Each structure stands twice: as structure tokens, then as C-alpha cells.
């Protein structure tokens, strides 16, 4: 049995993989956040046709495995358009849409949790429905949504590891390569796991700080 030791090059490989994972996560989470909240606003305004169609589509996405969605996009779309799809594009597309689905349901719950009475007050003061969303509903819905969104973010970060299956050079794929070369699975996967953990923990800490800021108004009396 031939063991190869770890080299500087391995560190670079892991760092690169981590970069891809974080980049993919950040990009798709941001897109998902925008699309999901947008869809929630569409639902809030009960836009005819669009709103039920979006709801049904996002419901489908939320209730099917990401891996299946990934395969559907990576293998299914090229078969339809007769053109290959790069693994990273397929991964980006799938994770964005999947995140959007979860964000949508969180955002809808957040919007619904804001008291109707303030909305009525704002309407009588002449705010348009869009101004009500912007100044009254969105900030409070965001405060309700941060905790579940942070949970979602941590989960979606882990979910990015699935894209290694279709050949994206992410952190998990880097671990895979390293493992095959060094044949030291315990060390390699511990290291990979620790990197995911560090990233997730940082996310949680950032999220908590954000939540404290958004919930400043609900802070205990400081009189």
C-alpha cells in the first residue's frame, strides 16, 4: 500500500475547493433570496396567474430532493436543448431555484406575521401598497425571517457538497481527490468537515448579529 504525504499543493486544492463552495453558496443564496422574496411579494399582491404558478412551482422544488433536481438540470436540460451544460452552471441554476423555494415560504410566513392593523394605519395615511411593503412589511418580515433564514443558509451551505457528484470542483470534490491520492480518509474528511463547520459557524454568528439589529425594537426596556 502506497501512502503519499500531504503537500502544500493539497492545501491549495482544499482552499480552492472551499472557495468554490463558498462562492457557489453565496451566489445561489443571494439569487435565491432575491427570487424567493420577490415571489413572496407577488403572492402578497395576489397577482393573478403569476402568483399561483409561482406557488406551485416553488412548492414542487421545496418538496423534492436537491440531488434529483440537480440531475434533472444537469442531464435533463442538455437533452432538451441539445447543448451541454457546464457542471457549475447546472449547480448554480439548481441551488438558486432550490434556495428560492425555501426563502419563498419563509418570506410568506414573515409577511403574514406582520399585524394587519399597522398596514391599515399606513394605508389610511396614504401609503401605496408598494410603500407599505417597503416601509412596514419588509423590515418586520425580515426580522421574523432572519432566524429561519440563517438555518436555511447553514443547510444550503452543506447542500452545496452535492454538486461534487456532477463534477464541480468544490470542497467535497477536493476532499475526494485528496483522499484518493493520500488514502488517508479519516484525516482528509476530518479536515473537510472542519472547514464546512468553520464556514457554517461563521454564518451563524453573522446571522445572529444581523438578527439582533433587526430586532432592536423588540429589545427589553432600557428606561
Amino acid at each position, binding site marked *: 500500500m502506497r501512502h503519499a504525504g500531504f503537500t502544500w499543493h493539497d492545501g491549495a486544492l482544499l482552499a480552492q475547493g472551499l472557495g468554490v463552495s463558498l462562492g457557489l453558496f453565496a451566489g445561489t443564496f443571494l439569487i435565491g433570496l432575491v427570487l424567493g422574496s420577490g415571489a413572496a411579494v407577488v403572492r402578497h399582491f395576489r397577482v393573478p396567474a403569476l402568483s399561483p404558478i409561482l406557488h406551485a412551482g416553488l412548492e414542487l422544488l421545496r418538496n423534492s430532493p436537491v440531488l434529483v433536481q440537480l440531475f434533472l438540470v444537469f442531464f435533463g436540460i442538455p437533452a432538451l436543448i441539445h447543448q451541454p451544460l457546464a457542471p457549475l452552471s447546472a449547480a448554480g441554476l439548481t441551488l438558486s431555484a432550490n434556495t428560492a423555494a425555501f426563502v419563498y415560504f419563509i418570506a410568506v410566513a414573515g409577511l403574514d406575521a406582520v399585524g394587519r392593523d*399597522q398596514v391599515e394605519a399606513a394605508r*389610511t395615511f396614504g401609503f401605496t401598497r408598494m*410603500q407599505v411593503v417597503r416601509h412596514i412589511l419588509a423590515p418586520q418580515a425580515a426580522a421574523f425571517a432572519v432566524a429561519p433564514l440563517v438555518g436555511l443558509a447553514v443547510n444550503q451551505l452543506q447542500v452545496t457538497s452535492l454538486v461534487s457528484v456532477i463534477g464541480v470542483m468544490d470542497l467535497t470534490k477536493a476532499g475526494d481527490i485528496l483522499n484518493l491520492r493520500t488514502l488517508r480518509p479519516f484525516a482528509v474528511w476530518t479536515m473537510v468537515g472542519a472547514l464546512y463547520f468553520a464556514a457554517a459557524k461563521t454564518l451563524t454568528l453573522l446571522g445572529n448579529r444581523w438578527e439582533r439589529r433587526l430586532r432592536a425594537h423588540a429589545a427589553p426596556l432600557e428606561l
Partner: protein
Amino acid sequence: MIAVEGVVKRFGAQTVLDGVSLAVAPGEVVTILGSSGSGKSTLIRCINGLERLDGGRITVDGLDVADPRQLAQARRLSATVFQLFNLYPHMTVLRNVTLAPEVVLKRPRAEVEAEAQALLASVGLAGKADAYPAQLSGGQRQRVGICRALAMNPRYLLLDEVTSALDPEMTAEVLAILGRLAGRQMGDGGTTMLFVTHEVEFARRISTRIVFLDQGRLIVDLPTARFFADDGGLAHPRIRQFLSKMAPSNTVAGAEVTV
């Protein structure tokens, strides 16, 4: 002028407002009395466009509230103070007051904030500008609600039982402010008030006119003194009954009232 003409409002099979007509001219302080469920809140909600009418017409300075465009204009003329305050909990007291003038009236922030600070000071809340609604007492919250409405420089102030969620002490502090406001505005073409209240004595003191809603019908519309006269409002059995329930000791049948 707020003109309510033959307004009908139904919730399902229930007719809550049954042909209500009422005119509130500039400078007037009009109080709506009536027992619980008679449609007082619904009438206010029809005037500020929160309910869709099933019949009749409401105009505010000629603007028809049933038309979305005109309603948007009408809403700049009137402001509502709510029973449960309906403040924006995620905003400071100051922001609660300045938001609508800034966003709706598009007035410059510095100017609006200066005015808001003055308003808050005038109701004894100078030190609370940066507090959040959750950090205030009910009476303080309602005073913010009043400032928020006044910051719009409304021609018409609509008030729906603004003290009924408050204890007697807080009620007194809020009524004192409203009394001052009514006294200052009465007859000078300033803020005109349409009140819903169960504080009969207060209504008697500040109103120019009192109307009585009974099961969705406006059965009496009289100048305040006439409303409390034996051959005026008190000639109606429903009103006598209502007043005796509201304040049994001092409102029935022309008994002397200390104000």
C-alpha cells in the same frame, strides 16, 4: 367637508350601515355615539377607505373615496387615530411620526423631524423620540398616535375610541390633549374632528354636534346642547337608554353635569 350620503355597508347577510348620511363641515367637532355593534367603527373605516361601500357615496372635499385615485388624494386630507394605536413597532417614536409626511407628502426630512419633535414635546413626549412603541405605556403610545396623525397636517381628524384601551389615568391624559386640540381648532377652519367615543361627558364638552347610530341607522344628528335636551336627543328612547347605561349618574334627562 366630509359628506356621507346614504351609505350602505354589509358584511355577508348583515347590513351594518343602512343608509347613513352625515356631513362634517370644516371647524366642526362631531361625535358619533351609539352602542356596541351599531356600526361606528365601520363608518369611520368607510370614510378613510378601509372598507368598500355597498351603496351610497362618501366624499372628502369633493373627492370620492370609492375611486382609488381620488381616495389617494382624500387620504392626504384626513388622518386617523386608532383605538389600538396601530403604531409601527419596528420604528422609533420619531420615525412613526415622520414616516408618512416624508414618504407620502414627500416633505424634506429635516423639516419634518423638527416639526415632529415639536409635536412630541407638545404632548409631553420630548424625551421619547428614540424609544420604540413597545417601550411606552398605552397612554404614551396613543399620544404618539395623535402626533403621527397631526404630523400630516390633516384637515380632518378621525378618532375611533382612542381611549377605550387605556386605564382612567391614561384616558385623562389623552383626553386633555384632544380637548386642547378641539378647543384650539374649533371654528377656525383648522383640524376638524370626527370622534367615536364612549366618553359621553367629554363628547358633551368638546363637540359642536352629536350624532347617534342605532343598528346601522343614524337616528339623530343635533347640535350638542339640543342632543342633551329633553325635547331633543333625549326624547328618543334608544338614546335615553344608551346614556343611562353609559353614565348612569349624570347624563340622564338633563341632570346637571359638571365638566
